[in-house]
C-alpha cells in the first residue's frame, strides 16, 4: 500500500487527470454556450437572453482560467 502511495509519478498522474477533467469541462461549457446562442435565435427575450448569454460566457472564461491556472500551479 505504501509503495502505491509513494510512487513518484502519482502526483503527476493526478495532475494530468485533473487537467483532462477540466478540459472536458471546457468542452461542456462551450456546448452550453452554443446551445444558449441557438436558443436565443429561436426565442429572444430581452433582457434575460443577453444576461444568460453573458453568464455562459463567464462560465466558459472561468473554466479556461482554471485550466490555465492548473497547468501553471499544479
Amino acid at each position: 500500500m505504501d509503495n502505491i502511495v509513494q510512487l513518484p509519478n502519482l502526483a503527476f498522474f493526478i495532475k494530468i487527470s485533473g487537467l483532462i477533467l477540466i478540459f472536458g469541462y471546457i468542452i461542456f461549457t462551450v456546448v452550453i454556450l452554443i446551445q444558449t446562442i441557438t436558443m436565443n435565435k429561436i426565442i429572444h427575450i430581452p433582457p434575460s437572453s443577453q444576461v444568460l448569454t453573458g453568464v455562459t460566457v463567464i462560465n466558459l472564461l472561468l473554466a479556461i482560467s482554471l485550466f490555465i491556472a492548473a497547468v501553471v500551479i499544479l
Partner: protein
Amino acid sequence: MPDIFIANSKVKTQTHIDKKSDGIRKINRLHLRFTRDPEKITFQHQKQDEKIILLLRRHFITNLSWLLISAVLIIAFPIFISVSNDFANLFPFLPNGLLFFSALFYYLIILSYILISFMDWFYNITLITDRGVVDIDYSNIVYHDVAMTNLNLIEDVNYTKVGFIRSLLNYGDLFVQTAGGKENLEALAVPNPAEAARIIGESIGKGGTSG
C-alpha cells in the same frame, strides 16, 4: 361650487397607480408567471404582423428542487472541509494546491448545474400568437424541439390541475389537440391553465393559414 381638493387626490391616486403598475411591469419583464401580451419578445419564423398574445412557462415553484439541491451543494463543501480539517495531511502525496483547485472546479460544476437547470425552465416556452401556437421544448442542453400550429388547426384545448400544491398555487398542464396527423402540443405546469385554455379556446379558428 368648485372642488379644489379633488384634483390633488386624483393626482396622488394616479401617481400611486403608476408606481404600482411600474412595479408589476418590472416583475412581468422577468416573465416569471403567466404573461399576457409580452413586449419585445420575438421568435424564429415570426411573421411581420404576428402578435404574441400569451407567454406560458412552467410555474417558478417547479424550480424549487434544483434551487434546494444547489444551495445544499454550495454549503456542503465548506462544511466538509471544516469537519475534515486534516484533509491535506491525510494525503501528503497530493500536489500542492489540489484542494484549492478542487474547490474551484466543484463550484464551477455547481454553476453549470444551475445554468442548465435554469435554461431548462427558461427555454421551455409555449407562445400563443394571433396566428397560432408555438411550443418550444428544451431539455438537457442537447435537445430542443420547436412545434408550431395554426389556430385554425386546433380542435380542442383542455387542462388538468391535479394535487394540493397545484391547486394552491394555481398551476397545471395544458393540452392543445390539433387536427389531422399533426402532433398535439402541451404546456406542463403552467400558471393559471384555465385562463390560458380560455384564451386559446376563444382564438380557435381565428388564425390565418401561415404560422
